[in-house]
């Protein structure tokens, strides 16, 4: 750029300044309004959207689908699509290093690459077109980042469409733009068509993508929630050997460990000598030699790190006399006279605490599963007798009241339930009222049946 052009530019700017405004208060005023607006937006986001709860990091949980921060998603999607290309798709560093470096390099050096002193849009069609295609591409890649390149049924249609929209069209557009960089009208058409077809293709991809149900992660945050979560997990996984209060000293009714002498885990011997960290490690690793299976995912178990933390917290606050437990909410709200309990409010938490440890897939239970409302009513080797509306001889009711089911020869076919210890009377009462009133599922159904 020669001194003559520089002088022209500076003189023009001086003239603009004369016709312009004052930094204080004119310019600052707009800045302050904008910043205040952003601040209010942040307050609203923090209050009404908040930050979704997430489980603690668990390096062993390789089933977790990793996702980068949202502003890197486009790069990720680009890499995934690029990997689909024939031949060059295998050379990873082309996409992870070369393409981003070139893009960033050009962006950085643009003041020295674009040497013309002209600033008006009409005289900068090429750079502006390149940038528009780039930004449209980035936005679309971000929006479609969740869409898999290979569908569950093995179809690659969505992947192909995405590759066309995310890589093929921009590449062609760039080639055309450079080839015809003197033809303004052609460049505008190319940019417009490229952008529209990319938007259209990505829109199609999004429309074709089967709706995925957002999976809810349950994360206990308050101490009471953590203790309750821990108690439920403990009842499901640990009671068969350690009993529901951790007091078992001689294991009964567990295959292979019958009569095994163990230290009650609610004793000071255990609680005072094992720290939280080693307790977590112990539960993760189990005691393979003594017969306790591993629970941590690292060692092939089924519990996440957070879940094992909750069990440990539950054990501390329930049995360790150095810890004072907060008041825990009741398992289910107490019933008034004539009130009918529902599955959602009463039965589900009870079943989770007292029955699911055995009545879930993979356990010895006569195929009677109790993890959902439907299962409780319809599964089991004796499905037609287990739960009968309005009938006191339902097997479920008999067994929880301490009467085993006998066959015609007087042989026991179903023992009392739960096998080791009878339920409290108020829990039995809930089951009784529920079945005698026709097993309502929701609180509303139950309320309709209640007699005040």
């Amino acid at each position, binding site marked *: 750029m020669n001194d003559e052009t*520089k002088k022209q*530019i*500076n003189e*023009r*700017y001086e003239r*603009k300044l*004369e016709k*312009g*405004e*004052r*930094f204080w208060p*004119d*310019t*600052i005023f*707009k*800045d302050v*309004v*904008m910043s205040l607006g*952003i*601040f209010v937006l*942040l*307050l609203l*986001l*923090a*209050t009404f*959207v*908040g*930050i979704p709860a*997430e*489980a*603690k*990091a*668990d390096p062993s*949980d390789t089933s977790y689908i*990793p*996702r*980068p*921060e*949202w*502003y890197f998603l486009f790069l*990720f999607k680009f890499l995934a699509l690029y990997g689909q290309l024939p031949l060059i798709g295998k050379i*990873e*560093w082309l996409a*992870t*290093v070369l393409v981003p470096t070139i893009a960033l390099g050009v*962006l*950085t050096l*643009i*003041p020295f690459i*674009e040497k013309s*002193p*002209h*600033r*008006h*849009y009409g005289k*900068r069609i090429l750079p*502006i077109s390149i*940038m528009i295609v780039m*930004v449209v591409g980035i936005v679309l890649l971000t929006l479609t980042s969740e869409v898999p390149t290979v569908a569950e049924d093995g179809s690659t249609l969505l992947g192909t469409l995405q590759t066309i929209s995310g890589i093929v069209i921009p590449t062609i557009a760039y080639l055309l733009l450079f080839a015809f960089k003197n033809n303004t009208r052609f460049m505008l058409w190319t940019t417009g068509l490229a952008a529209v077809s990319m938007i259209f293709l990505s829109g199609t991809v999004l429309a074709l993508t089967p709706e995925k149900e957002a999976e809810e992660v349950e994360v206990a*945050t308050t101490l009471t929630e953590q203790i309750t979560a821990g108690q439920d997990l403990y009842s499901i996984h640990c009671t068969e050997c350690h009993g529901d209060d951790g007091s078992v000293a001689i294991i009964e009714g567990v295959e292979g460990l019958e009569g095994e002498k163990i230290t009650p885990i609610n004793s000071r011997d255990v609680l005072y000598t094992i720290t939280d960290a080693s307790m977590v490690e112990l539960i993760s690793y189990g005691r393979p030699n003594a017969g306790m299976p591993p629970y941590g995912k690292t060692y092939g178990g089924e519990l996440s790190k957070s879940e094992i933390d909750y069990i440990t917290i539950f054990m501390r606050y329930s049995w360790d006399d150095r810890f004072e437990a907060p008041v825990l909410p009741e398992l289910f709200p107490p019933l008034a006279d004539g009130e009918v309990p529902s599955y959602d409010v009463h039965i589900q938490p009870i079943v989770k605490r007292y029955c699911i440890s055995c009545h879930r897939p993979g356990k010895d239970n006569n195929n009677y599963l109790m993890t959902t409302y439907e299962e409780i009513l319809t599964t089991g080797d004796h499905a037609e007798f287990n739960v009968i509306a309005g009938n006191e001889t339902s097997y479920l009711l008999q067994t929880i009241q301490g009467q085993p089911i006998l066959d015609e020869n007087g042989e026991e076919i179903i023992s009392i339930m739960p096998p080791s210890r009878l339920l409290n009377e108020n829990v039995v009462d809930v089951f009784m009222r529920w079945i005698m009133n026709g097993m309502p599922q929701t609180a509303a159904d139950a309320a309709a049946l209640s007699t005040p």
Partner: protein
Amino acid sequence: MWNNIYAWLDERLGFNDLYTNLLDRPEPKTSWWNTLGSASLFLFILQGLTGIFLTVYYTPSPDHAYDSITYIMEGVAFGWLIRGIHHWGATLMVLVVFIHMLRVFFTASFKYPRELTWLIGIGLFLTTLGMGFTGYLLPWNQKAYWATTVGTQIAGTVPFIGEFILKVLRGGPELSALTLQRFFAAHIWIIPAILAALIGIHLYLIIKHGESHFPEKED
């Protein structure tokens, strides 16, 4: 009396010079697009303030990071609000800085005499992304852990030196306590220091050259 104090201070600090040099400057007609730079600055300051508050309770160790965040959300008065602002502020800052860059590009404001302002700006853009990248790991939850795992993996694909970069970022072959410590140091000291210095130069250059006017047919 106030006048006397003011005069005394002005004689030594030069308020009036500051006023004429910084505030009472002429500008070309500016539009709302010109507010994005100062909005970035505002977000940077806000992130700094809320971030300082968060470090009071945050513990950068794999055993305690998650719990300390839970404590900030549940136990500390208005902790949820401060963390919420910091969380969404980070997202917004990346967006605002990016749009600011786009507007500078489209109005060709990077041309003579503002080339250096642009170069410093690229530095600002990259460091802002760096802030986001390092900050994301700190809550040590599943999302954070795995995002950083894949993020650092990409750096590992660089030919020849990829392995080395990966080790420097992670402090070992895997994500560990060292990685967290490292990201924490980068997030609260190293990158903010660079960012603050770059912002200083950026602002100096803007005051020196004034804001560019919007390009017209003759430009």
